[in-house]
């Protein structure tokens, strides 16, 4: 293809990493505030802590990639000289604030001495309330940014931002599941802690299941409406339909690996509890497979979308 890719791997990685990080922090803050009592000793505090501590990292890495991709890193400060209605400008403000607030939020979860630890709880809740809107903003704006251009028919869809938001939350949960599967050490002879671990696993897996189902729905709508259109959008979406250049990447990686495999494994684990009220038993291997598949799918979604938008354009002159 003789197309120049003005937005290459750094931008693709940024879209993915910022989505994952924003999703992780948003999920962590939501769990802290409304996840079964919340608070220290609340049932799901451990997963809120994982999310808070990991979440800011990918966002910071992604943002650094983006800033260095400009060629003149300090030029990025020009973004903060003004506020205009460009999605990139508003997104930069959201991103800047999100990084500051989410790092502060993460610092509150460091292993402080017990005297300080308890006093930090109201601050954690206060910052969690700020993290949620900022995280949603960061996850959402990248889709709005791509969707704002009529000259890029593949991107120019209002549902793209929604797709990115759902994918960000889903990959955020996947990162927390991965962290829990990697780091969690079940304390010996403590059935209460063991039970809490499984309950948290159920909360994460069931939420991810709902989000992936929703994501499949959004993708279905995206493709169906594009297919039923005549003109620019139809030709643009042809690159991910069977026979298109990106069809394999999209259908194999995004749909099968990123969505279908995890949703099937999650159903196998969630349905017994959901329908027959059996105890949920999470398995470390299954959690690993689910989370890695969802993360790979999330990356490939950004890859396919960013490339497809650049290799297609309006038809006719």
């Amino acid at each position, binding site marked *: 293809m003789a*197309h*120049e890719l003005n937005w290459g791997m750094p931008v693709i990685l940024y879209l993915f990493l910022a989505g994952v990080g924003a999703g992780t922090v948003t999920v962590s803050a939501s769990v802290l505030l409304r996840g079964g009592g919340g608070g220290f000793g609340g049932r799901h505090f451990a997963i809120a802590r994982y999310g808070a501590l990991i979440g800011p990292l990918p966002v910071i890495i992604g943002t650094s990639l983006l800033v260095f991709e400009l060629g003149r890193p300090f030029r990025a400060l020009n973004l903060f000289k003004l506020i205009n209605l460009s999605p990139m400008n508003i997104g930069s403000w959201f991103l800047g604030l999100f990084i500051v607030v989410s790092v502060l939020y993460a610092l509150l979860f460091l292993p402080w001495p017990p005297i300080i630890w308890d006093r930090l709880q109201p601050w954690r809740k206060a910052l969690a309330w700020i993290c949620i809107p900022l995280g949603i903003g960061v996850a959402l704006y990248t889709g709005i940014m791509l969707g704002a251009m009529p000259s890029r028919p593949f991107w120019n869809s209002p549902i793209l931002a929604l797709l990115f938001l759902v994918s960000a939350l889903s990959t955020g949960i996947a990162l927390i599941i991965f962290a829990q599967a990697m780091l969690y050490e079940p304390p010996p002879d403590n059935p209460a802690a063991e039970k809490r671990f499984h309950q948290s696993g159920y909360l994460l897996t069931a939420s991810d299941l709902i989000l992936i189902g929703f994501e499949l729905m959004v993708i279905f709508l995206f493709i169906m409406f594009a297919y039923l259109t005549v003109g620019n959008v139809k030709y643009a979406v042809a690159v991910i339909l069977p026979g298109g250049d990106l069809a394999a990447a999209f259908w194999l990686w995004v749909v099968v690996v990123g969505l279908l495999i995890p949703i099937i494994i999650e159903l196998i684990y969630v349905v017994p509890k959901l329908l027959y009220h059996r105890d949920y038993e999470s398995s470390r291997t299954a959690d690993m497979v689910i989370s890695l598949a969802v993360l790979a799918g999330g990356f490939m979604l950004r890859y396919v979308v960013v490339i497809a938008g650049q290799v297609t354009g309006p038809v006719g002159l």
Partner: protein
Amino acid sequence: MLKVNAISAARRRFVKALAGGAAAITAAVSGTARGATGGAEKKKTKRQYGMVIDVRKCIGCHACTVACKSEFGVPLGENRSWVEYTEKGTYPNVGRSFLPRLCNHCSEPPCVKVCPTNATYRREQDGIVVIDDGLCIGCKYCIHACPYNARFLNPVTGFADKCDFCIHRVSQGVEPACVNTCVGGARIFGDLSDPGSTVSQLIAKNRVTVLRREMGTLPNVYYIGADHTDEIDASRPELRQVHVITHRKQTKRR
């Protein structure tokens, strides 16, 4: 009644003062760029520069491409202005047409809408869309937003770059380099807001088209006799073969 009269009298005075001020500004501005506008009427303060490209007179010689290159020292592989060749049909029923291209200086520029730092903007006084290198961060958002592929990332400066209607020449009353050099007189430059200008007369008297009208960008570069055939038309039975040739680094229209 009396009160109303007083108000309307005051309004009349105000309007008169406003018109006087406007006239003074016009007089101050009109000294510049007279040659380019072809004797503009001296009543307006705002211009809308535009171009008419009479494709019937274009011989595809690339003089405009070269003049533009040397005017700005545009880096290798990139062009602010260029000429596309469109070949179509199958032997012996074939045709080739030329299409000189440049920034359309749209009245609704999508590039301006997306710029996060206001580095690119449409000048109020003459409608030229320009880029401020001092503000540009090189994010390439505007390059994607342009439906005409008129923008590129200048590999030397690292900032977005494109045609600026030779603002440095036009402000001195000289025609843009591409217009000046065109051997067939295919490129005509002027003030579209002046009904007496050559460009306005050409647009009024000829069948003109703009590129990608359906994008709603309201381009200010008009074409007479342009062939809008694109590669997508190759699937049509009457053409069968369409080949768009350009020497740009980005060889495909998008």
